[in-house]
């Protein structure tokens, strides 16, 4: 418990730094934020009120503190395009992203872990060589190109799956699934490549360990050795990697959502940049980075829970 609170505490400077960086980035934007937010023919009183609220006439450090204060209360400003609160907009966009992320993670694990195990078990054989090479190709493949090729193949050449759009899961599960397939594969492929390499490396290291040799010497059949002893120990670094990948997803969705017009946080960010809707840009970057940090923290803590060697000694 003490370690958890220690880790959370050491996060605070990083979280503060995220806020600082987000603020600085958007403070660099030229032009007057108020005109951007309210338009050129806005009511003078409203302009004055807005300037006071965000301390826009004060020097930069005070502006940051005013903004930071608002952030802490959950007020990330209002979207210039829609006028709705940024936090609500971002939160709403998170739902499709999480769906996509979950689906992509499932796809990647389904491919990567068996492939990694097989490659490790038949190390340096034909299967290993092919699997490793495919994984490296997967890593080198720009995911948007994969997405385009998949659209070409499954939406245009063979009109099987929709190439864009989104359907809510609860109301139309079939359509939702159809819309999810191509984006999930696109996003999951890159994850799968990295996860497969890590699984293979971890399995190789574990399989060559002495306790595995002992188990084999005792006569344990190979499959049981792989499953019972090796896999559980190899899963440790893999779990960490999957956790990190889930964090990386937050970056990968930007591209995939743009290719497939998936209404998630990535598309929101990109659209907002083009529309110069800076409150939304700032808000979505802030939320995404915070989520990323929290996911990594949870992964770290999970790792210490899973690995008895890392638990703090009493």
């Amino acid at each position, binding site marked *: 418990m003490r370690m958890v609170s220690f880790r959370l505490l050491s996060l605070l400077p990083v979280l503060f730094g995220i806020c600082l960086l987000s603020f600085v980035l958007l403070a660099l934007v030229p032009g007057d934020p108020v005109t951007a937010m309210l338009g050129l023919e806005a009511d003078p009183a409203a302009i004055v009120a807005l300037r006071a609220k965000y301390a826009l006439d004060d020097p930069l450090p005070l502006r940051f503190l005013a903004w930071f204060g608002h952030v802490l209360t959950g007020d990330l400003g209002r979207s210039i395009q829609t006028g709705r609160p940024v936090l609500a907009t971002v939160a709403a966009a998170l739902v499709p992203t999480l769906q996509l992320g979950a689906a992509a993670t499932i796809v990647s694990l389904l491919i990567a872990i068996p492939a990694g195990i097989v490659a490790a078990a038949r190390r340096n054989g034909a299967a290993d060589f092919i699997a490793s090479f495919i994984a490296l190709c997967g890593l080198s*493949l720009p995911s948007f190109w994969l997405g385009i090729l998949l659209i070409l193949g499954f939406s245009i050449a063979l009109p099987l799956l929709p190439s864009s759009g989104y359907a809510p899961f609860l109301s139309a599960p079939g359509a939702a699934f159809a819309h999810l397939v191509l984006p999930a594969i696109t996003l999951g492929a890159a994850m799968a490549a990295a996860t497969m390499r890590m699984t293979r490396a971890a399995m190789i290291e574990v399989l060559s360990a002495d306790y595995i040799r002992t188990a084999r010497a005792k006569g344990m059949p190979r499959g049981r050795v792989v499953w019972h002893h090796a896999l559980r120990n190899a899963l440790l670094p893999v779990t960490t990697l999957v956790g990190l990948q889930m964090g990386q997803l937050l970056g990968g969705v930007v591209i995939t959502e743009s290719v497939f017009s998936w209404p998630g946080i990535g598309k929101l960010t990109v659209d907002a940049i083009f529309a110069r809707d800076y409150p939304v840009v700032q808000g979505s970057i802030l939320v995404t980075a915070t989520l990323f940090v929290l996911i990594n923290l949870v992964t770290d803590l999970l790792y210490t829970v899973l690995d008895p060697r890392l638990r703090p000694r009493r």
Partner: protein
Amino acid sequence: MTARSHWWQLLSEPRSLLGVVLVGLVVVAALLGPTLYPYGPDTPDFLATLAAPSAAHPLGTDDLGRDVLARILYGARISLMVGLGSVVAAFVLGAPIGLVAGYAGGWTDGVLMRCMDVLLAFPGILLALGITAALGASLPVTVAAIALVNLPVLARIARGQALALRTLDFVTAERALGFGGATILCRSILPNALSPLLVQASVLLASSIITESYLSFLGLGVQPPTPSWGNMLHDAVGFLDQAVWLACFPGMAIFLTVLGFNLLGDGLRDRLDARDR
């Protein structure tokens, strides 16, 4: 083992040989292609728009009649410039930060690494997007943005190396002899820390090229009319049903280039591990 035998071994292993070949092809294409190839990347030919690959245009033309191969060759230059530029910039800035943090320890280490942690807290593309949003999209901004994404990665590795090296006796000996911290960092720590940094740099080269293509595809990287493989693909999406080749070749180019650098990086890492053992 001398350094020469390292490079020889790099070529003898099939995968790293493939990597060297691919990277070599891209470098040659970037250096010589645009000058040797008759078509320019920006010359429109309205009589031959969206032409399929043929003898006249080996990779076809786009919607403005521009030769695709010419644009791809020029795009190679862009990719390599952005890739190299961002990695070199990240190295020049990040390695000293990490080395100083690792060697000095204490407050310096804490503060510097917290800053690096903040940069690492953003998923790479997101950080690059944020910087682009702030400063406007252009080639220099793209290079700077990707450099900032790469910087903390190199800094972390440099710090790890410095932490390990500073406990070694020869570093203590340098202190005993009277050399100051800066001299020790430059002459004792940095040369011995280079290998893993260079391996990571080659991996980052691959990821930088991909990130540039992402940004350009979104329209937030290299701006038209300058051809980048990423923005070529952006334009290709609108013509997927009419001109498949517009989507295939730039993507293939990115794929082969990145694959080459990844193979090279893997090969370097294997050499490094083998030598250390």
